[in-house]
């Protein structure tokens, strides 16, 4: 069970899980998405809040809270234009905000489950994600709110497993964050 202190020791396994998530995204949108970079690090709350660059840039976050033996938060973060593109690829229509929200939630379920199942199977443990929340807002507002919940105190470092995927033309990038927590 990857508690924060053990994250570095299980780096190869996590990279396998992230690759699995990337493959899942590629299959879902029928377009190859390859990992650009993967980082396993601990970050201060201030660093975490600016992880994606400018704090007031708009982004779409698909968040899964994960319970069971494998406790933590999994977030898929994309630019709004990429969210629109994904929605079109998934349901062929962007006209209904509810449908778009639902489609992005389903994408979070499928890509997130690919990551979680890989890790859970490797440890023979249970990962039970909550239904996805899809939120469109400022990157800093979303990451700081998530970071404050994840860190026990604002001085704590936040363990972050981060990767980004991009399509061939590098026109679109999807960021995947796994924030492992100690089981309660």
């Amino acid at each position, binding site marked *: 069970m990857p508690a924060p202190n053990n994250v570095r020791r299980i780096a190869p396994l996590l990279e396998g899980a992230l690759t699995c998530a990337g493959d899942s995204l590629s299959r879902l949108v029928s377009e190859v998405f390859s990992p650009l970079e993967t980082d396993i690090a601990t970050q201060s709350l201030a660093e975490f809040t600016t992880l994606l660059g400018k704090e007031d840039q708009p982004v779409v976050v698909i968040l899964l809270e994960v319970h069971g033996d494998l406790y933590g938060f999994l977030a898929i973060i994309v630019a709004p234009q990429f969210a629109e593109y994904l929605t079109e690829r998934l349901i062929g229509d962007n006209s209904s905000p509810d449908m778009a929200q639902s489609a992005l939630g389903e994408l979070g379920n499928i890509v997130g489950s690919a990551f979680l199942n890989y890790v859970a199977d490797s440890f023979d443990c249970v990962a039970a994600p909550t239904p996805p929340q899809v939120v469109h807002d400022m990157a*800093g507002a*979303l990451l700081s709110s998530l970071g*404050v919940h994840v860190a*026990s105190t604002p001085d704590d470092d936040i363990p972050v497993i981060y990767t980004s995927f991009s399509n061939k033309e590098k026109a679109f990038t999807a960021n995947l964050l796994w924030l492992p927590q100690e089981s309660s």
Partner: protein
Amino acid sequence: MSNSIGLGEYRVGHPGMDEWTMHGLGSCIGLIIACRKTYISAAAHIVLPMNPSAQEQNSGQPARYGREAVPFLINEMKEKRSAEDLFAIMVGGARMFQFTMVDDIGRRNIEELRGSLHRAGVPIVAEDVGGRKGRTLRWNPTTGMAVVTVVGTEERELTPVSEQFINVVTE
């Protein structure tokens, strides 16, 4: 030019200084306290309602915590002979996500600051708090104008006309 105030940071300043900005306020709160007599103002980017380490009365990072930030900022203003006839503006305290196992920190931040400002006798003349949207707050120490921006909407002026720094002669 604009000066960013990061999580847990603060500023104290006077007319003539560059604008201050608190980007991407989610559950955090951007607090402004200003003096009607001297036009000295102070700002803090507050993260949590109080220091989670209950044993520590003084965290050493007073701008991070709502309970410590108000007396701390007033004390800083007192050193500039500007601790009378104050008013406050606060922005933020949203609930960006619904978590299953933790409190609504945004709401707790709002409640703590309202209580703390009330105890200090500082009226809140404008606020944009709560809800589900992130905000960016800009404060102009020269004009006394607070402006709030939400994704997908026009920016909005918060400071009531009666509280703006009119007729201030800058250095």
